[in-house]
Structures are given as C-alpha cells and as structure tokens.
C-alpha cells in the first residue's frame, strides 16, 4: 500500500493511469510485440519471433506502397478541398445575414450522417444502372462512370469533401468569430482593400486555427475506410485501395496479424512526421509579443 502514502494529487491520477495502461499502452505494446513475431490467427500455436522481418518485408510489397500512395493523394486532395471550400463558406457565413443561422444548420447536416451510410448512399446515387446522378447527367447527354479506374479515387475524394467540409466550416467559422476586431479596423482606416485585408490580416490571424483544423481533419482522413468498404472494396484494380483497407485485408481477411501490425506502425510513423511538420510550421509562424 505504498501508493497510499503518495500525495493526494498523485493518487487521483491513478485511475486515469490504470485506464490508459489498459486501453492504450497495453494494446500498443502488444501490437508492437505482434509485429516482431510471425503471428497468424489461424496458427496461434506456431507463433515465433522474427525480429524486424515483417518491417523489412514491407519494402517489397508493392500493394502496400500503392495503398499508402492512394491514401496520401486522398488526404491531400480531400483535406485541401475541404479547407478551401470550408474557409470560403465560413467567410460567407461570417457576414451578418438574415438567414445566417438557417444556412449554418443546413450546411452542417452531412457531418451528422454516419460514414457507412454516406458510402452506401453514394454507391447507389452514382451507380450507372440505378443512380440518380448518372440518370440526370444522361438526360443532358453526359455519361460518366464515377467508379471507373480513372475516376474512382476522385469520386471517393468528392464524397469525403461532401461529408467533411462542414467540419472545416465549423472550426474555421469559430476561428473567424474569435478574431480581434482591432486589426480589421486598422486595415480599414489605412484604406486596405477587401482582398489585401484577407491576405494580410485574416489569413495570418487564422493561421493557428487553420493548421489545427488541418491536423485534426488530416488525422481523420488517414483513417478512411467506410467509403471504401461500402463502395469499391479497393477496386477497380488497386485504384482505391487505401492504407487502412489494406491493413484490414491483411489482418482480418488473411489473418496475418503480424504483417498488418508492422504496416500500422509504418503508417503511424508517416502520420507522425506529417503532424510534427505541420505543428512545427504552426509554432514557427506564431505571433510573439
């Protein structure tokens, strides 16, 4: 009962530490241990230590790197478009208008739908046989196969943009509303145009909010899975195979957990590099009085 002698502030931390150990630290350590072994769910009696073989083996797995490439394209394009459109909408909604609250409510709706339902919805809406969008386009003489090899990843990106732009809008609108009014008044007194006020005042002041929004959304976009599961299952070919879908396939369909764990750790590394780079960027540009 040594811990009872600890100061109260430390004792109060104990439940949190226990929970963190159970739900975060243990799974992390276990998955790392799994990645160093040959661990297949259908052969648990044959588990053996293989060191870094799973990590080294990844270098020759073209499907894995292709999935990582697809994911990076997805993340950059989807989050990029969401930021641009979200910022534009936030600027529009920031202006005083009679229907401001109504527009805010309507624009936020897609965010509240569960992603798997969104995936299924678009799967049918964009289906060439039964989809409403191809039907309407056909009426004006345009035929587009949204899930053709060329367009499939782009279609998935558009679906993500449809669903998650409201999230960007929400964060950026909150950011805009918390900006101090003095710099804008000073800009007006100095006779700055709307365009130069935006570039020279709004954007620099919004920088920390923008980067935080980018980090949050980017982390989420790396986890894209539901649309792939519901719509393309990674096809055609490997055009929409994203990293999480690939890891799921190797781990839960082929039951090769050790390989899947090593893939997940490499993904964590890639994500970490990106997040640290963005965070460093944010810190560098921070205003210091």
């Amino acid at each position, binding site marked *: 009962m040594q811990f009872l002698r600890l100061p109260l502030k430390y004792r109060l931390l104990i439940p949190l530490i226990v929970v963190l150990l159970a739900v975060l630290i243990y799974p992390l350590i276990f998955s790392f241990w799994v990645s160093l072994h040959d661990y297949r769910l259908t052969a648990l009696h044959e588990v053996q230590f293989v060191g870094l073989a799973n990590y080294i083996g990844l270098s020759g797995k073209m499907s894995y790197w292709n999935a990582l490439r697809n994911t990076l394209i997805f993340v950059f394009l989807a989050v990029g478009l969401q930021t641009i459109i979200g910022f534009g909408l936030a600027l529009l909604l920031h202006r005083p208008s009679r229907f401001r609250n109504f527009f805010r409510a309507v624009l936020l709706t897609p965010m509240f739908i569960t992603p798997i339902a969104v995936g299924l919805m678009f799967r049918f809406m964009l289906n*060439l046989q039964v989809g409403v969008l191809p039907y309407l386009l056909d009426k004006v003489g345009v*035929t587009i*196969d949204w*899930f053709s090899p060329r367009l499939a990843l782009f279609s998935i990106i558009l679906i993500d943009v449809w669903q998650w732009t409201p999230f960007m809008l929400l964060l950026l609108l909150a950011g805009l509303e918390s900006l101090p009014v003095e710099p804008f008044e000073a800009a007006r007194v100095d006779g700055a145009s709307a365009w130069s006020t935006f570039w020279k005042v709004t954007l620099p002041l919004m920088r920390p909010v923008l980067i935080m929004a980018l980090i949050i959304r980017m982390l989420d976009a790396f986890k894209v899975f539901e649309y792939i599961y519901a719509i393309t*299952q990674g096809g*055609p070919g490997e*055009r929409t195979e994203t990293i999480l879908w690939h890891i799921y396939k190797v781990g839960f369909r082929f039951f090769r957990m050790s390989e899947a764990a090593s893939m997940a750790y490499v993904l964590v590394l890639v994500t970490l590099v990106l997040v640290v780079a963005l965070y460093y960027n944010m810190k560098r540009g921070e205003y210091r009085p």
Partner: protein
Amino acid sequence: MRQKRIKMGGFLAIVCLSLAMVVGLVGCVPAPVAPTTLTIIMEEVPDTDVVKELIPQFEAENPWLRITIEALPYAAMRDKMLTSFLAPESIYDIVIADNPWMDEFASAGFLEPLDERIAQTPDYDFDDFVGPLRDIGVVQDKIYGVPFYNYALALIVRQDLFDNPDVQAAYEERYGKPLAVPTTLEDYLEVSKFFTEQGIYGAAMQPERGYKIFEEWKNWLYAAGGRLMDAQGNTVLDSPEARRALELYIEQFETSAPPGSLSWGFDDALRSVAAGEAATMMSYNWMLPTLNDPDGPAGELAGKFALYEVPGGRGVLGAWHWAIPHNAVNKDAAWEFISWLTSKEIDKQRVILGGAPTRTSVMTDQEVWEKGFGREYYETILSILEDAEPLARGKRAEEVIEVVGTELNMAVARDKTVDQAIRDAAKQVEEIVRR
C-alpha cells in the same frame, strides 16, 4: 365467542396445512427442463430463409432443442466465426463454412471431424451427396463438413432470343451456321458479339475485383484448358492457356458487356439480365428460379431464361458446408440438427422449398421435379455439379482468390497487360502457398 375464535383458528390452521401440503407436493414434481438452444451462424441469403421454414418442424420433432439463427452479411461472417473459434467456448453450436474457408478452418483445428457421427447415423447415405461437393468437406482424409447448398456456376441465357426465328436467321446469315447456346469460349464470344450488334448486350459480366472476377474467370480458364494449381498443389497459373482465357475474357468485356460494368458483381449482372439489357450471364445456377419467378426481378421476362453448362463444360463449384466448431458446447445436439436437415427426406423438402440441391437422389426425384423447377433444371444442375471443380482449395484460398482477382481486374481495367497480370498473379500465388 372464544369458542368461535378457536374454531376459526382451527379452520385457518387446516387451510394453511393443506396449502403447505400442496406446495410441498408440487415441490416434489421435477421442474421442467429448459430446452437446449443451438445457435447457428448463417449468411443472409435465400437458402437461409428456406432453412428457417424447416425449423418449426425440427423443433416439433425435438422439443428439447431450440434453434436460433444469426444471419449475417457474407463479409461479417468469417471474422465472427474466427473470434468464436478462438474463444474457450464457441458462441455458435453450428457454423456454415464457405468453400475457400474449409481447408483453412479444418487445418487450424477449428472444426470437429464428423466421420464417426456420419457412420453412426442410420440411413444417412453420405455418398449420395454429389462427389465434388462432398469432397470439399474432406480435409486430409477426414470429413469436416457436410454439404448445405451449392452455388456452382452455370450459363444463364435468354432462351426466347435463341429460339427466335428472326434472330436465328440473322445469325445464320452473319456467321453461316445455326445459332446455338455456346459450348466453347470462341462460340460464346461470337454469340455475345452478335447479340450486341442486335441491340442487346451479349453478356452481363461480373469483373469486380477479387472474389467475383476470380469466380467468373476461372470458368474461362478451365474452358481454355488451364488450371490454377496441379494435383500436387503446385501453381500452374502462368501458362499460355491462362493468357488466352484472360484475353478472350477482356475481349468479351470490351465488345459485349454493358458499359461501365467494370465494378459489377453478381447482383449488378442479375439486374442487367433481369432488365432485358443483356442476353446471357455466367452466374450461380440458383439464379434461374429467381429470374423465372413471375414475382421476381425479371417481371415480364420471367420464364424466358434457361440454364446450361458453362462453355467448356467444366464449371466452378462453390459450396457451403455445415460444420461443428471444435469448442462447441452442444456437439451431439448440433449433429442432431445437421443430420436431420441434410437427411434425404428433409433435404428433399428443402429443395422443393427452393433450396439449392446437393444430393443425387433429390435431383433425380420425380416429386422434386414436379413440385420444384422441373426435371430439366435439376438434371442440368446434376450434370454441372458432377463435372465442377472447387472455387479454390488450400489453407490460404481466401488470399489466393483476392490477389488473383485483383490482378485479373487490373488487366480488364487495362492497368496491366494480360501477360503482366498473369505473371504477377502466379508469382503471388506461389508466395502465398509457400508461406
């Protein structure tokens, strides 16, 4: 007054005593034993609904047993089953195993051998199941599964088009020979192109990556004389026959399949044929009754479809088997249900209700012909099943299907050349098998 109270007290005492005796006597009667509930994991398909229809009959004959079916979509089944196999006690008393899972589950020790139970079951007649179907449940000379239903692939055609004198005349004029249901890949391609020229797509195909294209293309591979593996389990996919099969498949897709169908699975192909958009498709044999059902998806076209063996004569055989998990709690009761449902008598009822057949005796039974879908249908299925080859075998069949199916789809999408796709597929299969 006092006397009256005593009398009243005596009366109450007698009542209480009587009640206590009644309660005591009731206590001596053994409490009714709660029936054992068997939980079965199944797929959300029409064949599961047929089984559900038969359950009341089983429960009436076996009042000490109750059946609960957990019907799931295909994609969710394997994970749940694996979790159950790895637990100290299985959640499921009975599972159904798809063809590609059988070797994997049996080799991992997840399934209970059924040889002794089959031998001890009177009049079970295991050999009555069609040979190739029966063999899928046998792993390393032990029986781990008994056939539930088949999904062998067949050629489904619009018979009314083949029988139409105008169409026949047009074909004869164009190709100088009579129009007939194709029996070779070359004929199939020719007939498909012809129908496309006539304004109806020649074939609704299912080139969706992975399982679907693999399942369909393997028929083309057999017809071209190729194989995935030889009898010793060596990969023989990298062959001129495989290249030929893929070239013809792509040619058929590009010339005769509805546009934008690169990601189609069997349900999309079914919709296309049912809507009168395509004249043929290679699909599960049990789709024929669905298409010919007047209340089914084909509407006015119902009754105009017919079933044939795939070109080349050797089709892909898919099958589901009943199995008992090694860690099931009620193994005897589980076998009681499986052996009842797959017995000759009940299997006949199942097939009459619309289930896909597995037993030879059922497919040659006059009553089944009359009450089911007709003699021709069952005889065609029997001949398809007798020549069919399993979709895939081996401990890593699921992975083999996925990687070959991805390479095939890439070739159809023109992301890879035929040569590259076959070479890459063969290389990956070799790696998977060696692992």
